[in-house]
């Protein structure tokens, strides 16, 4: 991180945005690029929903890299509160300060103004995101918002509409330039409409076969063309099945890497059975696919590939 980050200008058209994402190895749909473009220019949060493993979090990371901005990440969990998300006072140091000041017979008002100053403030992600940076406003990633509870969501509502935080002891801190906010949700519960209304919404879907192949080429460049095609074909077939948890792009990439590690050059029923755990994460799904079903799907994939080649 030692090298100074360059400052990059925001893309001016949707096509530029698409290229910008592509330059950081994110192969996006034009529809996604449109939503990103809107969020960048109208300075509103981007709300990404979709199944696990379709690349929601990655968008924030890619934006930060491509724009040369700092990435601030807030991982949500149940019970997330102001002390861990926004700010906290450094109580231990405050205590010491009070003792020292009392020993020196300082005035009480003076002690109060000293201990509630910037020096004793521990800044958490949301507060950090409001601070000016040399490279331009940072990218704030609020990851898996659906894991928090409603009170935090309500708090966020205020923060995201005005980009300001009020600390009773100090006053209101306001961002000169709002950060680029990306919110993701796995939809384990519905986020309130009031929050979504303030954002640009995009449902990140599973990619088409062509796009998935393109992604795989970027993310697992070591894999041979034929293996990649078979992997994508197989995963796409799985997504058509009635499984409890469909494999995402992350799983496709992981699986390809696992196959490469095992020196598999071509998919075989045996290789699939050995590595199915990388692709499917529920025992029922694995049990359903293990053995003959996997072989049947693979046969279909190979037949289709042969037909396409002919």
């Amino acid at each position, binding site marked *: 991180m030692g090298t100074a980050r360059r400052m990059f200008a925001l893309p001016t058209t*949707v096509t530029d945005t698409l290229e910008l994402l592509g330059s950081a190895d994110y192969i996006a749909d034009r529809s996604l690029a*449109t939503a990103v473009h809107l969020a960048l220019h109208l300075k509103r949060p981007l709300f990404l929903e979709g199944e696990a493993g379709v690349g929601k979090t990655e968008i924030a990371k890619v934006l930060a890299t491509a724009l040369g901005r700092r990435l601030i990440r807030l991982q949500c969990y149940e019970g997330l509160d102001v002390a861990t998300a926004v700010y906290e006072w450094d109580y231990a140091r405050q205590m010491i300060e009070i003792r020292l000041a009392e020993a020196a017979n300082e005035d009480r008002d003076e002690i109060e103004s000293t201990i509630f100053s910037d020096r004793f403030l521990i800044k958490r992600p949301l507060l950090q995101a409001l601070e000016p940076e040399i490279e331009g406003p940072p990218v704030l990633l609020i990851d898996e918002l659906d894991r928090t509870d409603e009170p935090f969501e309500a708090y966020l509502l205020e923060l995201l509409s005005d980009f300001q935080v009020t600390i009773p002891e100090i006053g209101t801190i306001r961002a000169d330039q709002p950060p680029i906010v990306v919110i993701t949700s796995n939809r384990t519960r519905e986020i309130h409409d009031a929050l979504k209304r303030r954002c640009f*919404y*995009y449902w990140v879907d599973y990619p088409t076969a062509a796009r998935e192949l393109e992604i795989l080429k970027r993310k697992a460049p070591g894999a041979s063309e034929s293996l990649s095609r078979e992997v994508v074909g197989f995963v796409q077939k799985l997504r058509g099945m009635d499984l409890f948890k469909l494999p995402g792009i992350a799983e496709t990439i992981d699986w390809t890497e696992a196959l490469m590690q095992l020196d598999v050059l071509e998919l075989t029923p045996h290789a699939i059975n050995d590595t199915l755990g990388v692709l499917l994460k529920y025992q029922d799904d694995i049990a359903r696919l293990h053995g003959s079903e996997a072989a049947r799907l693979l046969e279909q994939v190979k037949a289709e590939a042969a037909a396409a080649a002919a």
Partner: protein
Amino acid sequence: MASSAPRQASEGSGGSLLANLMHFARTLRAAGLPVGPGKVIDAVAAVRTIGITDRRDFYWTLHAVFVNRPDQRLIFDQAFHVFWRNPDLLKKMMGLVLPELRVEGEEDPGAAMARRLAEALHPNQNEGSEAEETETELDAAMTFSDREQLRGMDFEKMSLEELARAKAAIAKLRLPIEDVPTRRFAPDRHGARADLRATMRAALRSGGLIELKRKDPRRRPPPLVVLCDISGSMSRYSRVFLHFMHSVTNDRDRVHTFVFGTRLTNISRYLRYRDVDLALERVAEAVVDWSGGTRIGHCLAEFNRLWSRRLLGQGAIVLLITDGLDRDAGAGLAHEMDRLHRSCRRLIWLNPLLRYEGFEPRSLGMKAMMPYVDEFRPVHNLESLEILIEVLSTPVTRRATAASAWRHSEERAA
């Protein structure tokens, strides 16, 4: 919907984009999307940012503004294609925003723009999606009528006296559910943790000795999911259960309610109407499989696949109300019950055993379900909400005892 067709943009009037977007927003609202006036302003800003150069971009720009949930995507898609079909309109609108685009666009807009315009306006684009639409409609119509019996339901209105009794009964309700600790804290004199922030503030106020303040985790009731059987064998109780579910939904937060017979219907939204008669009327309209057969396994599978991850996330309690009489004779039921049981904090089965005491149901459905419930609550004489509440409010019995009691009775009968 002739009235919702886009108004022709009159040349030169700057407000036409706004007018048409407003009209489009109204169409969406009529189609059931929650679109407020603020959204129109957002849409104008968004369209100005992206520019109308490409039909797809225009689509996704409006999509980003108007759509809030995945299930709204289809409605939006259809509304968009119906509304913006008129290419003349789009051309005129482009004329309106074009001057701005010229300022913004960095390259020579002339020739390229015209070609892209032509591409965007090519009428072939619509055809595919329309053909698909009609196809799916046909499909849906075929599937439902031949397989299941669809019936309406007419509930009598609740009298004032009944209403008062229902309220009194629900006030007594103590579900066999304990409040669970959350990860948030509230000040508590005897709490286990030190509240340093409060301590610090108190110390400044008083000076001298620093008195340690304490805090303890807040507690709140976990989310509740009610799955209620409304098949023929349960039809006697439908009214009682619906009243119960209505009261519970309005009594606490985080309650989700489903009914099932041959299919699963989420009725939480309808039950949120304060007025019980209105709520029941809406439910009666929304549910199409009243008093038909039961496919418990099938419906639970649907719940597990589509809803469980969204509703059972934060340690939810599931209240399953069914008599366990299954048309599919318990096929696939054990598997789905197992999954449901694993995904929730506690699974409570309320079984209104048929009318007379001592009835011992040994249906295949029941056998399949029994091993997976944490708590089994049979009720023999279910005439009113009061009795239901009474049964539900009795203190917790351990799962093992409930299950073994039933198993013993089964052995005796055999």
